[in-house]
């Protein structure tokens, strides 16, 4: 295809898009929605995965001491274990302060209690690569230890949840992308029907099939790419709004993992995916047209 034909294809594609703004906007909106929804879910999954990875990197256990146990002596004894990196004593007062900080609404009911309801605990951070199951068993068997709880189960559940959510997002994304392809195909088919007479004239004047079809391929691709950019924009706006809301009034759970947007290199994926969906839709539609 020569430069003139390429220029003609772009000019015609733009003209087709402009000739029916409602249809063009609808196609762009459908692509944007089909990329926005899975994009948002993937953003959540990405942050959850980061949280899970962080938790996994530093395995930890919480040791609740029996009443009257010597926290300092026990902490020193546990710290001597090679599988343990650090031990921190959390006094009942410190535990209460932490609780009040995380759940300010519960401060008043807590103040009405006669005793501090938090026992002394030891936060045991394991050395990287330590076999947590063995260390936990040894901690539970020590005198003065009431119970041992580890994050391992929670971590596993979190990882499972993230994995499931990611797969669900991709599945949903696939479904929505399929719907977007169909909607683009319909928009292109509609545009071709609207320009049927022109297409016929072009054929009679000696235009090749590629010259006739190229503007419609471009139309679908352009609408897809713009839809992808719109999805990215709305996603960024959503992220910004939620982040601002978190800063104003931190949420005990969401604030923990709502920390990162997609890396810059992934931004390009949105217009590219939109473009691919648009091109597929256009190709599906234009390819089915009779030779005239």
């Amino acid at each position: 295809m020569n430069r003139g034909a390429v220029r003609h294809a772009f000019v015609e594609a733009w003209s087709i898009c402009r000739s029916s703004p409602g249809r063009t906007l609808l196609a762009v909106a459908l692509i944007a929605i089909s990329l926005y929804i899975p994009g948002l879910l993937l953003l959540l999954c990405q942050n959850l995965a980061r949280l899970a990875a962080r938790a996994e990197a530093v395995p930890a256990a919480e040791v609740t001491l029996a009443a009257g146990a010597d926290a300092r002596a026990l902490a020193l004894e546990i710290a001597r274990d090679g599988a343990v990196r650090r031990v921190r004593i959390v006094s009942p007062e410190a535990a209460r302060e932490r609780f009040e900080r995380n759940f300010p609404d519960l401060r008043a009911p807590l103040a009405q209690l006669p005793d501090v309801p938090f026992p002394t605990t030891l936060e045991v951070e394991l050395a990287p690569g330590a076999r947590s199951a063995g260390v936990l068993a040894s901690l539970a068997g020590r005198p003065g230890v009431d119970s041992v709880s580890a994050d391992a189960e929670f971590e596993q559940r979190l990882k499972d949840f993230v994995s499931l959510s990611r797969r669900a997002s991709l599945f949903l994304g696939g479904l929505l992308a399929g719907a977007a392809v169909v909607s683009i195909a319909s928009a292109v088919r509609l545009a071709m029907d609207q320009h049927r007479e022109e297409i016929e004239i072009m054929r009679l004047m000696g235009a090749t099939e590629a010259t006739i079809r190229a503007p419609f391929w471009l139309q679908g691709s352009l609408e897809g790419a713009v839809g992808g950019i719109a999805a990215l924009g709305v996603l960024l706006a959503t992220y910004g709004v939620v982040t601002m809301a978190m800063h104003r009034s931190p949420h005990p759970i969401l604030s923990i993992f709502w920390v990162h947007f997609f890396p810059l290199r992934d931004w390009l994926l949105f217009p590219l995916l939109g473009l691919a969906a648009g091109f597929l839709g256009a190709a599906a539609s234009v390819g089915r047209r009779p030779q005239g």
Partner: protein
Amino acid sequence: MIHVFHVSKEFGRYRHALSDITFDIERGDFVFLTGPSGAGKTTLLRLLFRDELPTEGQIVVNGRNIGVLPHSKLPYFRRSIGIVFQDFKLIPRKTVFENVAFVQNILGTPVAVQKRRAYQVLKQVGLHYQMNAHPSELSGGEQQRVAIARALVNEPVLLLADEPTGNLDPALSEEIMRLFAEIQIRGTTVVIATHDLDLIQRMGKRVLTLERGRLRERGSPPAALVPAREAPFLPSA
């Protein structure tokens, strides 16, 4: 230029549009294709620019057997001929210049060359001052002249016109016929389908008459039909 051998065209099983048509048209000829409505004039023209394929027979246009022309070569074949339709077939959203320069545009001809060539052919049809107008701003006669300019812009060896004066009043019809005569003088073979016998008689050109899909007459119009004035629409130059 055109060789038609025993061509028949059927639409479905029982509708015989053309039956066993054979004729030749030499390079530079001016030929009228006439006959009553439904005689097969438009079908024959559509066969000549391969908008349809014959059911039987062979058609050779400008040395090419167009019945066996691959679909991929069809656009290039059509660029070598000019086609003018009764309903003009102009693209409404394009300007006169864009309509005329369309094929040159997709061929990648520089814009300056496109403009120069479009200006030349529009001047030839007397519409060079309307380059930026849209078809809807022009009269029927002007639109037909734009369609003729578009057909001429690639310097075709053959010009086919299907009822080019069908939507025009007698004065405009004469003007359009004068244009076709000028085009023939420049060396282009011209084939015009029309049922306007008055125009045919006054032009004094070769006539092919179709009747119910069969070729009935070949050659010049009967002497009695030729007007006393010799070819009144021929240009003075």
